[in-house]
């Protein structure tokens, strides 16, 4: 293949990554921040406060506070972690929720949403690394008349989506 002039082939830079906002580190079970609030080293991600969760990272606007109800799902929307409050709210232990689809536990309850799969689409986008923190209205899968506002966004370091329920 021949090239004509320097404009035929040129190296172009990758698109600039979206500016990532400040991130917070929290325990995936008790939501407490580690001492110093710094990202853990690989191999030491177990929460020193409760010992029952792994330290995760999320945008500061999304990161839960202790006593928040939240869930962590992977790219296939399987549940990996439930906070203590989410366990109480949904009536099942984290170990029993493991590998269940989040849609078995929570469903969209937003009349304005863009279709029945709106919640799944938001979760897939978040687990794929979308930086935005989005909001949705959800309800427990087997209950009517109860609705929660939920913030949804990415968490890591292993790609996942974090759903924080606003219980008011």
């Amino acid at each position, binding site marked *: 293949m021949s090239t004509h002039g320097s404009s035929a082939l040129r190296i172009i830079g990758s698109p600039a990554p979206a500016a990532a906002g400040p991130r917070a580190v929290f325990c*995936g079970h008790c939501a407490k921040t580690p001492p110093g609030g710094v990202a853990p080293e690989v191999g030491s991600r177990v929460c020193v406060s409760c010992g029952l969760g792994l330290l995760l990272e999320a945008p500061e606007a999304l990161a839960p506070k202790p006593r928040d109800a939240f869930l962590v799902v992977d790219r296939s929307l399987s549940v990996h972690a439930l906070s203590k409050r989410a366990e109480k709210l949904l009536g099942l232990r984290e170990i029993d929720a493991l590998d269940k689809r989040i849609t078995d536990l929570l469903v969209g309850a937003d009349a304005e949403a863009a279709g029945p799969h709106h919640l799944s689409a938001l979760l897939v986008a978040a687990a794929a690394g979308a930086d935005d923190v989005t909001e949705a209205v959800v309800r427990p899968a087997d209950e009517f008349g109860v609705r929660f506002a939920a913030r949804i966004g990415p968490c890591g370091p292993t790609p996942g989506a974090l759903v924080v329920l606003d219980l008011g």
Partner: protein
Amino acid sequence: MRTLKTSEAAGMLNVSANTLRAWERRFDYPKPQRTAGKHRVYVHGEVAALRDALRDGLSISSAVSRARESLRSDTHILVGALASFEIERADGAMEAALAMRSVERTVEEVLLPSVAELARRSGTDSAAWAIGSRWAIEWIRRAHRMTPPPVRPGAILIVDATADELDPDATTVRALELFTGRTGIRVTSVPVANHSGVADLVESLRPGVVVLAGRHANDESIARFAYAVRAAAGSLPLAFFHRGDAEVSRTSAVHQLPVSPSEATAQALALLDGHAAPVRFTERSSS
């Protein structure tokens, strides 16, 4: 089977001993065994699998689940093959396990747990147990036949106190023969009932240690054999392996080898080298 003390397991996972105990309560994993002194010891493979799963997990629960799965997969395949009488598939499962582990680890982490699971699931009076147990012993014997000839000085005499190939202890005793043989020493096994002519055997083999293995034969048979050995060779270190709650007299000096064949092998070699002190039983077992 390699085991870790609580502090070693906690260090490997970068957590405190309290956290390990909290996981044991909440997840029943890693599940420690207990030493004679009631201290926790963790199976190295379980802890290593959890360490790997924690590295890219999203929660402790999911890491524990993954660790369990990774340990079970080879055992699952083997138990499934044996329970359905598929011997070729069982051979294949062992081949696959060997690709990831040494012979010793394959036997200890896959074969022995699978045989134990088969006994638990089907019962030792089942056809599946008869086929599975014999297959396991034949597999170990095949591996033993491929062991290079002895190159190290010293010999061990294993006195087989199991009933037959269907004795639940038989596979583990064969594993001990394999493991000790693979260290390069000379190993000979003889049934406990065949005590006649033991003097000639001892004269020929010149064992440095005698291991009495299995719990089927009664104490009288064991004592008769031990007497014959000592009459021929004088005071030799005696050790029990998978002998259960053996009762020994107040004056006996006998070594209890660990239940794990690899640990028992290491201890038997230490005995052979004169490095291990016997466990002196000061009182009869109450059990």
